[in-house]
């Protein structure tokens, strides 16, 4: 590592190399953080987490009691032992709180002024962060399992919503109504995800074992259905293609958008080429999955060989994406883990668990290096390196 630092300092190597090497090293050294904790607000299980993409400072969490909490992850005290405080929350006595469990929360991809949340009470609510009021509410006929808004979209403001019905709804935030319906699945849609590479490509996963990729500009149906056996492609074949041998629970694009990971109740995880739908046949072994809703897993970003973090019972299993090797299992929770998010700036992994009544949050931080102040970090907007940088 000192070799990398001195090479970076003298200009022999690209700054990106040091960043990637250090990120990889930190991910490989991930362990439960004894110094940091998150304030406990939720009374029951936490279903979803999202860290805002702009500064990676604020985190939203949605719980089974309908409560949404906003945390500030930054440590501005000089102490190493620190509890991340909740900035505000939409509690049970808020007039617009969700009636049932919140399934997905997501920050607005371009700034932290707005976030969206969807819940089993058949609504998708759009919230204004500063006033904590709902700016808009979309009502559906069936319970909503998952929603996603494209992180790279500039030409559209569509939110894809997966419900218990077989149709994927696309809601337009600008006009306030559902603008599209995508038909093709036969059972409930458990997960939806936009591609981080192209703003019009959407992947949807359903309980009928199928994963379909759509281009929302196209009127005539999905682009293709993923086939785990990589059979011959022909029009009529599409109806028999299955991505998994059970329900498909979770979807995640890799950070460059070239590959797609899917997880199913047949205890398998598969990696697909997102441009032609081919199964890359990377075998991760048995990935235990008995969740009846969506399973939220995440991939790392900015490491030399990307890793995927999947909740596996009460642990988190870490695999290398392209080779399928299991690196480690991160232990620390007492009950089953529901969701995890990865923060690429500090290689921090936060996961929440579901429990009966009591739940724990574990905030894991990789071993941090005494980094010199000129370590490159991508940041939007000017920020003066404050005294905080020293207690890294």
């Amino acid at each position, binding site marked *: 590592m000192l070799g990398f630092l001195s090479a970076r300092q003298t200009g022999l190597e690209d700054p990106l190399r040091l960043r990637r090497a250090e990120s990889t090293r930190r991910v490989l050294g991930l362990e439960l953080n004894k110094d940091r904790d998150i304030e406990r607000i939720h009374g029951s299980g936490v279903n979803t987490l999202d860290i805002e993409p702009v500064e990676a400072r604020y985190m939203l969490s949605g719980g089974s009691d309908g409560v949404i909490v906003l945390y500030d992850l930054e440590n501005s005290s000089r102490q190493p032992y620190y509890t991340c405080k909740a900035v505000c929350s939409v509690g049970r006595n808020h007039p617009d709180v969700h009636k049932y469990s919140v399934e997905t929360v997501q920050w607005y991809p371009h700034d932290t002024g707005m976030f969206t949340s969807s819940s089993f009470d058949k609504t998708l609510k759009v919230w204004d962060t500063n006033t904590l009021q709902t700016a808009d509410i979309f009502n559906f006929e069936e319970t909503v399992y998952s929603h996603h808004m494209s992180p790279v979209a500039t030409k559209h403001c569509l939110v894809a919503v997966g419900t218990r019905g077989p149709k994927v709804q696309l809601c337009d935030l600008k006009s306030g109504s559902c603008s599209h319906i995508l038909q093709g699945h036969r059972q409930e849609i458990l997960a939806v995800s936009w591609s981080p590479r192209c703003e019009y490509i959407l992947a949807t996963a359903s309980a009928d074992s199928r994963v379909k990729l759509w281009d929302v500009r196209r009127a005539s149906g999905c682009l293709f259905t993923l086939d785990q056996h990589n059979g011959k492609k022909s029009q*009529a074949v599409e109806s*028999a293609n299955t991505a998994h041998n059970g329900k498909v629970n979770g979807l995640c694009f890799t950070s460059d958008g070239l590959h797609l990971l899917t997880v199913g109740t047949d205890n398998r995880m598969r990696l697909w080429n997102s441009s032609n739908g081919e199964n890359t046949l990377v075998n991760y072994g048995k990935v235990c999955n008995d969740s009846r809703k969506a399973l939220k897993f995440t991939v790392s970003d900015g490491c030399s060989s990307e890793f995927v973090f999947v909740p596996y019972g009460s642990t988190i299993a870490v695999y290398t994406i392209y080779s399928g090797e299991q690196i480690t299992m991160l232990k620390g929770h007492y009950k089953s883990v529901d969701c995890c998010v990865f923060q690429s700036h500090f290689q921090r992994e936060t996961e929440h668990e579901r429990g009966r009544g009591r739940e724990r949050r574990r905030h894991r931080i990789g071993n941090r290096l005494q980094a010199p102040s000129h370590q490159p970090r991508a940041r939007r907007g000017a920020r003066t390196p404050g005294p905080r940088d020293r207690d890294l």
Partner: protein
Amino acid sequence: MSRKRHRLVPDSFGLKRRREQGQAEADPLRGESGSARAAVAELVQLFPRGLFEDALPPIALRSQVYSLVPDRTAADRQLKELQEQGEIRIIQLGFDLDAHGIIFTEDYRTRVCVCVLKACDGRPYAGAVQKFLASVLPACGDLSFQQDQMTQTFGFRDPEITQLVNAGVLTVRDAGSWWLAVPGAGRFIKYFVKGRQAVLGMVRKAKYRELLLSELLGRRAPAAVRLGLTYHVHDLIGAQLVDCVSTTSGTLLRLPET
């Protein structure tokens, strides 16, 4: 000097130096660490031909190949290559959608020819089966066949397809699609499922639910195990139904926690 640093492999960044696993143990199961084809050839030797009076071709399972070739991704890719080259056929065994049987194409063709034609001499479906073996098998290496593929590309009519299903060469998958099947494989599947449960039961009944591999192989096989203990143990290890722990006395098979 800086050239060493260019390989960003996890080993350089592993914070703990893991001790190299001792490779010197003479493990009866890990003898083959080479390619998938060698693994399949070895597994096919384990299949008890006499039990089925030579009516079935020797079938190996994909999970058994995983136990012999430790890198699963490489094993999958090699099997896919072999399938594309036409050397092996992969069959969907009915009991579990994930369990695939692997048969050498030559064996499949000879056995199916011999046994089906012997069984249906004079019956109407002999002709359909012959046509299937001659035209479809070499052309299409997939596990399953679709309606339009069969009718348009290969020129089968609906009654002929029904005859193929009756003969046992095709199994219904969905409306308009069929899996490739081995006629007479029902008996094999029955013995296999019973044997798998019996071997798992042997591990389950052991103290602390774990058993040394050498001890398991040395025990007398219960009556339900007709295909051989080694055959089943390979399958259990590869399907991750037991955890393989290496100890100083050899490999230990332990039932997983859940």
